[in-house]
């Protein structure tokens, strides 16, 4: 087995992730998170996240190397999330990765966080069928992608025109008095609720709307209005029903557009990624609709859907295998790196 070993760094938000892969084989996925420090703020505080990344960096590398049972000198290439994300947080990972690459005398690949969310599935389900449609939904992103070649060509089909899907979960959780981050508590509350109780709007689903773009701002507003009206009337807010109906609206729009993108492009493979892909209703509805449409659905386990270093190493591994040129020595961070830039 002489496939290259890639060390991957992820620090675009609150997770300090260091992953190690050999080819498509996951060797280590070490993670430190500062989420507990952010919860009381109702969102990730950039300065707190950046400080935590710095503290966690070297210990997390040690943990990854120990888990993989390798020495740093065994590493053949280094990959790092160069964007999109929080600038200050990204820079800790970029600087660390550049230093490890320099010290080890190995090539460095600055990669796109979103493409890495797609690449991670190869660690669980083997090489990606190309082309695939990929749908990435997280706190910061909601994108539909056509992926002819994950190492070199990713095309954006659509994206959110206002709020990201995960952001809508966070803001609806805020309205319902549920904790941050909003995804898991809304998902839990929804299990006890009736998804058909309230008909919340499905954004951008009209015949003349952009087929692959998303809008969750109107949905968020509709939930806030509905809850306010109840509160003004002095009535109790049925949290479970609101959560279930809101979640249904999100899952409905996301899966309908993803399946449509597959059909329109004659693609029969769909990959989900990003933190919102851990949502139980989204997974179930995607399963159902893909089965009906004859589409093969691939969803990484929830642990790999959220941010981690293994996904960055996985994409780095693809880049090495494809012979893509490493990044220039002046690699930096780009908080709004466009999705069609797989590596830079």
């Amino acid at each position: 087995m002489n496939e290259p070993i890639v060390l991957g760094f992820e620090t675009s938000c609150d997770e300090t992730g260091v992953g190690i892969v050999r080819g498509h084989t996951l060797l280590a996925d070490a993670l430190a998170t500062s989420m507990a420090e952010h919860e009381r703020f109702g969102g990730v505080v950039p300065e707190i996240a950046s400080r935590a990344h710095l503290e966690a960096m070297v210990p997390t590398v040690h943990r990854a190397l120990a888990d993989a049972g390798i020495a740093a000198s065994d590493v053949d290439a280094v990959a790092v999330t160069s964007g999109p994300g929080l600038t200050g947080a990204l820079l800790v990972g970029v600087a660390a990765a550049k230093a490890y690459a320099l010290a080890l005398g190995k090539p460095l690949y600055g990669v796109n966080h979103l493409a890495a969310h797609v690449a991670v599935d190869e660690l669980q389900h083997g090489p990606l069928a190309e082309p695939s449609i990929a749908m990435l939904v997280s706190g910061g992103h909601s994108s539909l992608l056509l992926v002819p070649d994950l190492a070199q060509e990713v095309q954006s089909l659509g994206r959110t025109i206002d709020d990201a899907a995960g952001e809508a979960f966070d803001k609806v959780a805020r309205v319902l008095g549920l904790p941050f981050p909003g995804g898991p508590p809304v998902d839990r509350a929804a299990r006890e609720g009736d998804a058909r109780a309230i008909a919340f709007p499905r954004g951008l689903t009209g015949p003349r709307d952009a087929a692959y773009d998303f809008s969750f701002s109107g949905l968020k507003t509709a939930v806030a209005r509905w809850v306010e009206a109840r509160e003004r009337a002095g009535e109790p807010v049925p949290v479970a029903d609101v959560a279930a109906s809101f979640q249904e609206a999100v899952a409905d729009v996301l899966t309908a557009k993803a399946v449509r993108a597959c059909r329109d492009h004659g693609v029969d493979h769909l990959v989900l990624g990003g933190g919102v892909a851990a949502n139980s209703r989204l997974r179930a509805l995607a399963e159902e609709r893909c089965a009906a449409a004859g589409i093969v659905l691939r969803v990484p386990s929830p642990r790999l859907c959220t941010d981690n270093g293994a996904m960055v190493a996985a994409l780095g591994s693809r880049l090495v295998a494809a012979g893509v040129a490493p990044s220039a020595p002046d690699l930096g961070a780009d908080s709004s790196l466009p999705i069609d830039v797989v590596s830079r």
Partner: protein
Amino acid sequence: MKREHLLPTLADTHALGRELAAAARPGDLLVLVGPLGAGKTALTQGIGAGLGVREPVTSPTFVIARVHRGGRIPLVHVDAYRLGGAADVDDLDLDASTEESVTVVEWGQGLVEQLAEEHLEVRLDRRDDDVRTALLVPHGPGWTARLDVG
């Protein structure tokens, strides 16, 4: 420019944004005040369009701040919900200074006013019939004069 605006549709909110963009100058600070869904991001989209920004202006919540170039003046769009104060905007190390940009801040009331000598407060609200309202409140002589002229 009128101080009070009724905004029945999204297009009206965008139009007010374009009107504000026409009056905007480098160094301006706009503080948008209002509840969830009052149209803060929509207004900023209109300001972006008015300045000539081509890329989509989407919610900055996840990254805290986005810089949109390519228009008449750079547009810095900030969600201050997770920031403690004006100083944190400097700490974001944006590749644009507040002096050369129009800075639009959501959720920044009481936190970011000292970013500039004066600022325009835009109070947005959403009525029960879903019509949005906007009230322009100038803080400082420059904004007062500009609103009275327009």
